[in-house]
């Protein structure tokens, strides 16, 4: 602020001082708020992570400092907890679900986005509405069904049930993205001599890839974390990581350090992709809003 005529800085008015003070208070409040939020959400997670490296004695003391140990991990992969097998089950179920869900959802999303069906929008909406149905309602008949054909406690049963959760959402996410794509490109491909299917493969899918990736990440998070269906459908061979959390509750009391090891294992992939999740989530959302 320079005043050419006087050369002296003008005295700040009372209103200016008040505004400045207000701004300072606001920014201090802001920082305090952000710190509080960070602490509330970060510290519990950190505490769980730390617990995974504590000896049982350290777990029940509330000391912040402790001697880290890897004993819990050794114990977790041992015969009582079979962490390795649980990880493998979780990977098979997640990968299997994604391999079926994403291609079939992409195909259906394109179909719903570009073709008219008798009944119109009722079908995709109806599909989404099924997600309002309580999970317990769906699992009772499926439990009976899988029991009668001997699929209880197999990854196939889990993959099949997970599809029912993931496919409706994935169709909607990808459909939203495809609705926003201009028709020009695929029509150009058709004029260039491609069949409609070829135009889908060569043009629509590559261009819709950000949307498909968003849906894939969403499905990955849901499937990897899925607990309830797995709790009902598995008992031994096919137990996934989230269900194995329950096995830390033994007759001799809760073995929290083992729970923490399993929890850490579940969280690792989420930590790796949390920034990607945030980016894709926001991108998908703003893309929808701008349109």
């Amino acid at each position, binding site marked *: 602020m320079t005043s050419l005529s006087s050369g002296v800085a003008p005295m700040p008015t009372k209103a200016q001082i008040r505004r400045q003070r207000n701004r300072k208070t606001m920014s201090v409040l802001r920082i305090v708020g952000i710190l509080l939020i960070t602490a509330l959400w970060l510290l519990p997670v950190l505490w769980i992570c730390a617990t995974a490296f504590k000896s049982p004695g350290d777990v029940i003391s509330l000391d912040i400092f402790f001697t880290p140990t890897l004993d819990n991990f050794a114990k977790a992969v041992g015969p009582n907890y079979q962490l390795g097998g649980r990880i493998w089950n979780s990977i098979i179920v997640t990968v299997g679900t994604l391999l079926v869900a994403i291609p079939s959802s992409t195909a259906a999303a394109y179909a719903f986005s570009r073709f008219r069906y008798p009944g119109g929008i009722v079908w995709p909406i109806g599909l989404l509405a099924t997600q309002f149905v309580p999970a317990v309602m769906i699992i009772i008949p499926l439990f009976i069904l899988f029991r009668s054909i001997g699929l209880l406690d197999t990854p196939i049963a889990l993959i099949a049930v997970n599809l029912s959760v993931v496919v409706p959402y994935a169709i909607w996410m990808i459909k939203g993205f495809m609705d926003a794509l*201009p028709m*020009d*490109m695929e*029509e*150009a*491909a*058709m*004029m*260039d*001599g*491609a*069949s*409609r299917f*070829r135009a889908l493969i*060569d*043009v629509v899918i*590559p*261009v819709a*890839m950000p949307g498909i990736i968003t849906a894939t990440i969403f499905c990955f998070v849901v499937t990897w974390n899925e607990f309830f269906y797995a709790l009902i459908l598995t008992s031994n061979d096919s137990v996934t990581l989230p269900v194995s959390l329950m096995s830390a509750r033994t007759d001799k009391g809760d073995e929290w350090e083992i729970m923490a090891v399993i929890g850490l294992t579940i969280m690792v992939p989420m930590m790796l992709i949390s920034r990607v999740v945030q980016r894709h989530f926001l991108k998908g959302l703003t893309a929808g809003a701008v349109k």
Partner: protein
Amino acid sequence: MASVELDGIGKKFGDVVGVATQSMTIHDGEFMVFLGPSGCGKTTTMRMIAGLLEPSEGRVLVDGEDVTYDAPKDRDIAMVFQNYGLYPHMSVGENIGYPLKVRGLSKADRKAQIQDVAERVELTQLLDRRPSALSGGQRQRVALARAIVRRPKVFLMDEPLSNLDAQLRVSMRAEIKHLQQEMGITTVYVTHDQIEALTLADRIVIMQKGVIQQLGTPEEIYNTPANLFVANFIGSPSMNLINGSLENGIFTAPGGVHVPLKDSSQKNRANVVLGIRPEDMSVCDAVGAMISGVLYNSEMTGDAVFATIDVGEARVCARGDRHLRFQKAQKVGFDLDLDYVHLFDGKSGARL
């Protein structure tokens, strides 16, 4: 190279008529422009030729062969889209080469042809770029190159210049015309811009509300508009239209309009519209002029001065010498070049 024939073709969207039943033939090597305001059915007609839209009735023939129900890919027709329809995930070269790739040409063959076409539209330097890194004019060129690389039977262009700025539009217009004449490919071009239509076309189809209003050469369209709609739509500033009556070969209208027609054989009529283009009138003294009135506004456009006067209920504009100057509320008279007076039926709008 091919002729395109539309045989009683029409399109309904539900109960709404998109294009009324119509027939026309586009000759081999011809540059045909579909012109009309938005929603007139020009794009719908083009999309039926392309095969992107199935007609509700009638047939589309290319070289005498019925292609009405063929997929776009089986028609050997290329199309340039308004928003170019480039593939954002492919380089410029891959974009141009895509039609060849789909047809199963080897990579080497494709490369040679891409190079050849790129030279023709001056894109050789940009072949490795992505479309997003190009300017509007360059994108337009890529779309053109992609359309001509396989030498299609028919070329369709859907408002290809509407996204470019005015200057670029003029130069691209010349380029398109040049390319089309050089390659001799039958072309259908959709636009709402009359200048584009008049400059590019061998023949023009003017459409409104799904109905063809006139089909003819640019000269015919401009000099003998078939009805009031065409008369009003073509020309800038548009043709003056004055409601009046015809008696004993003399046209009269409120405000003292008095035009003795050259062709005195016209029947007497109560409801007639006289049309005259601004450039077919001359500014003269108000006393004794065929049309005279109080000046409403005058505009200097550089090469001319356009004077507008209030005559009765009508407002009439004439093109005058660029040195003309007027005063506020001055009385001004116009004389008409009687060779270019158009008469239309006041009710049906048809040319008399």
